C-alpha cells in the first residue's frame, strides 16, 4: 500500500494561532513530500515541499517538520490568518515527475 494518512480532517484555529496538520506515509520510496493548498472552486496549488534528507523547511509562516524514522511529516502555519482558510493536502511522491499520492485533506478555518 502506498497510502498517505492525514489528520485532522478539519481544524478551527483563531487568528494568530498555530495550525498543525499531520501526515504519515507508508511508501519508503517516496523522496518528495509536497503540501498543496486548495481554495473553493480552485485546483490544488503547491504551498511548500520537503525532501527526506532535511528535517525542517520553512517558508514564511509555513514550516514542514519531517521525521524520516517515524515516516511522518507535518505542516505548521504560524500566525494563522483568515486568508489561510482552505483545504490542505499532504502528498508523497518521487522526484522524477511521478504521480502524487495525496492524503485525505484537512479543512482549515481561521476565525477572527
Amino acid at each position, binding site marked *: 500500500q502506498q497510502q498517505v494518512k492525514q489528520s485532522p480532517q478539519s481544524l478551527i484555529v483563531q487568528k494568530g494561532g498555530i495550525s498543525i496538520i499531520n501526515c504519515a506515509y507508508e511508501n519508503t520510496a517516496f523522496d*518528495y513530500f*509536497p503540501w*498543496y493548498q486548495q481554495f473553493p*472552486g*480552485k*485546483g*490544488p*496549488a*503547491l504551498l511548500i*515541499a520537503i525532501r527526506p534528507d532535511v528535517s525542517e523547511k520553512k517558508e514564511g509562516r509555513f514550516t514542514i517538520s519531517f521525521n524520516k524514522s517515524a515516516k511522518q511529516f507535518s505542516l505548521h502555519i504560524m500566525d494563522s490568518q483568515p486568508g489561510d482558510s482552505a483545504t490542505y*493536502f499532504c502528498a508523497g*511522491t*518521487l*522526484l*522524477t*515527475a*511521478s*504521480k*502524487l*499520492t*495525496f*492524503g*485525505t*485533506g484537512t479543512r482549515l478555518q481561521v476565525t477572527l
Partner: protein
Amino acid sequence: EPEVTQTPSHQVTQMGQEVILRCVPISNHLYFYWYRQILGQKVEFLVSFYNNEISEKSEIFDDQFSVERPDGSNFTLKIRSTKLEDSAMYFCASIPAGLRPYNEQFFGPGTRLTVL
C-alpha cells in the same frame, strides 16, 4: 501568470453516455496528469501522459477511460460509458519542461462531472 485551464467547469450527463473533459496545460509543460476527487474524499491519481503516451495509470483508469493530446495543446480525458460512481471533480495537472529537479505539479481548477 500562465495557468492550467479546464473546460467545462461543470458537466452533467446521463449514465452510459460518453463525456470528454478538456484541459489546456501551460504551454511549455511536458508531463500531464489526470486526477479525480469524489466529494468528501481524497484526490486520486488516474493517469500520467508523457511524449504522447501513457506513462502510468491507476486501477481506476480502466478500459472506459482514455486520454489523448490531439493537437499539441489540449489534453483530454474521455469516459466512454459513464457510471454513477464516475461523479467527481476531475483535475488536470502538468509539469514544466527543462531541468526541474522537483515534482511540482500545476493543477487546473477542475471539472465537476455529475452522472445521473
